[in-house]
């Protein structure tokens, strides 16, 4: 198994470099220039050249590329954001934990809800519960995350006054947070993160529950389930011991593969709920044409996906004896 894991890690490295390279050249191939933001027709061309020199844009692309790699790999530096007038690194370090917080909670929700419902639906195949959850899951699966977010906002954060239980945006109550007790602060954070993570989690859970149901139904048909029944085990032991373990393994991989969707969803959900995370950074960068910020955001999301998949693969190898012992 060690060879397998080391090999997986080694494969991830060129993958990350590929991501970086594609991103770098894609962004530098874009028309215009990062310094456009300063540009006005009256500007002295010389002054403009000056600015370009300051940001190292006058150097050949290859040199810029190598410098960039050097910065990223050695110092975790992503250059300077001209629009925000501060190093990209600072901006990222501020936003990233918020996004990770949101995504992690959503992932937890996704797994518990998705797997639980999937199992119940499969066990009670063709029942009312199964049919109802299948339609519900399909509906949530087909719902743009911003729509779910808006519906939740409308229902629980202002639209309906009777159920105005949650704040509409932000991570904390800006006015009162500082004056709260520790417990109060925790509660404040909780009610702020509740709706965004629910929005992000439900959509993903719908997808997972569909897979989970399918996998378990597939496993239930296997020969070894018949063997287990022939031993005289109860149906519960048959399904939950012999079936579940086999059905859960592919879910690990699917979870890894669903990460890009989770992060894409996070971008939208952050926008809906005014959550100060990477998604906001990305959308701001879009409107400000912030080249270096883009590069960093893409790279970091890509890296998180690669690492997430790597973790999923390693987890899979540990769970499946056929991989573990080969």
């Amino acid at each position, binding site marked *: 198994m060690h060879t397998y894991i080391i090999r997986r890690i080694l*494969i991830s490295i*060129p*993958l990350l470099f*590929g*991501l970086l390279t*594609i991103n770098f050249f*894609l*962004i530098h191939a*874009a*028309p*215009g220039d990062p310094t456009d933001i300063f540009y006005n027709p009256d500007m002295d061309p010389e002054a403009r050249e000056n600015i370009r020199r300051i940001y190292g844009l006058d150097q050949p692309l290859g040199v810029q590329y190598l410098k960039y790699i050097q910065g990223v790999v050695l110092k975790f530096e992503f250059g300077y954001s001209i629009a925000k007038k501060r190093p990209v690194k600072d901006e990222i370090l501020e936003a990233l934990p918020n996004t990770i917080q949101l995504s992690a909670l959503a992932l937890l929700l996704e797994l518990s809800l998705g797997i639980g419902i999937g199992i119940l639906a499969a066990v009670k195949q063709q029942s009312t519960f199964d049919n109802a959850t299948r*339609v519900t899951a*399909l*509906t949530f*699966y*087909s*719902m*743009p*995350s*911003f*729509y779910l977010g*808006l*519906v939740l*906002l*409308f229902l629980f954060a*202002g*639209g309906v006054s009777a159920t105005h239980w949650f704040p509409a945006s932000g991570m904390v109550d800006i006015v009162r947070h500082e004056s709260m007790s520790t417990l109060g602060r925790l509660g404040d954070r909780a009610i702020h993160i509740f709706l965004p993570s629910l929005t992000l989690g439900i959509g993903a859970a719908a997808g997972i529950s569909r897979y989970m149901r399918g996998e378990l139904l597939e496993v239930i048909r296997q020969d070894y389930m018949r063997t287990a029944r022939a031993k005289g085990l109860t149906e519960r032991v048959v399904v939950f011991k012999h079936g579940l373990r086999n059905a859960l393994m592919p879910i690990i991989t699917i979870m890894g*593969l669903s990460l*890009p*969707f989770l*992060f*894409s969803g996070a*971008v*939208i959900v952050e*926008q809906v709920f005014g959550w100060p995370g990477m998604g906001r950074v*990305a*959308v701001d*960068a*879009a*409107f400000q*044409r912030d*080249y270096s910020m*883009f590069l960093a*955001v*893409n790279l970091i*999301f*890509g890296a998180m*996906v*690669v690492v997430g*998949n790597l973790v999923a693969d390693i987890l899979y190898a540990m769970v499946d004896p056929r991989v573990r012992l080969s």
Partner: protein
Amino acid sequence: MILGLFGLLVGLAGWHAGTLWDTLAHTLEKLFGANVPYTLRDLDFLVSTLFLLGMLAALVLYSGLSCQRIRQADRTAQGPERQWSIVKRQFLKNRLAVAGALIILALYLVAFLCPFLAPYDPVEQGDRVQERLLSPSAEHLLGTDRFARDVFSRIIYGSRISLLVGFLAMGLAVTLGTAVGAVAGYYGGWVDSVIMRFVDMMLSFPTLILIITVIALWRNQSIWIIITLIGLMSWMGVARLVRGQFMALKEREFFQAARALGAGTGRLIFQHLLPNSLTPIIVSATLRVGNTILLEASLSYLGLGVQPPTPSWGNIVYDTKGNLFTEWWMPLAAGMAIVITVVGYNLLGDGLRDALDPRLRE
């Protein structure tokens, strides 16, 4: 009856054509000219074309099915059914799938018949202040927005964007994915390794953010760019699927038999591998349409997709989300339209999979 329906469609198309011919010239100019935003008239033409093509395909398919039925009639009662009729029966028995198909059909009809269905012009802004932000009434079913435009009409016209994006982006993704997957699966070895590593890398990009990047930096939000980008970012799943399918089929004995007969590469791919991969490709294409529509809606919601005044469901929500707590029907109705459409495609895809996939049928 079919002929009557067909006649009606041709008639409608003819009516459209009257207003369409002049837009054709306009469209071509737009397509090949500078990146001027397209207009509603371009969409009118395109959607009609797509609709007619779709109808034609449906007719051909339907008559094909009828032929099968006739051929079946002369066979012994004991023999197994034709594949097609089994599929049809399975599909029709699945009420949800039929509902999905009807939703899609309705969407196509609505997109085609926009000028007849929409009570008002979706773009023209009213100039009187008192016509702005009206509540729903018999006159304006969903009220008016802050530019005094009828929201209901805008939602009806918005169906065109979803239809177009879903169809074209999926088409691009499936074509690209099939080609790449076929090459990787057929040749295998190092060709496969290189291609699949590239696919892995593409899969690591969070699609939405990469598309945002390109749109923002290239400063081009034309619908063509959006469709192309969505297509370019959605082919990897199809590629993996086709590759896996080819790999599995290459192990089958009929493929070996064809090689033993001396069949060349072309025949092996187009006669033996591709036809047998078609079923999962069709299913995945249908399920993928929903995703592309969602992606476009998300972009528009961020204000980075289809640009106003052209109505798209996503940008209607973007436009009116500020009114969520007051004129809530506007964003929620536009969002609901997206949900219904995507649900329709997903139901259809699920139904097709259940009907076509013999593994699940047993």
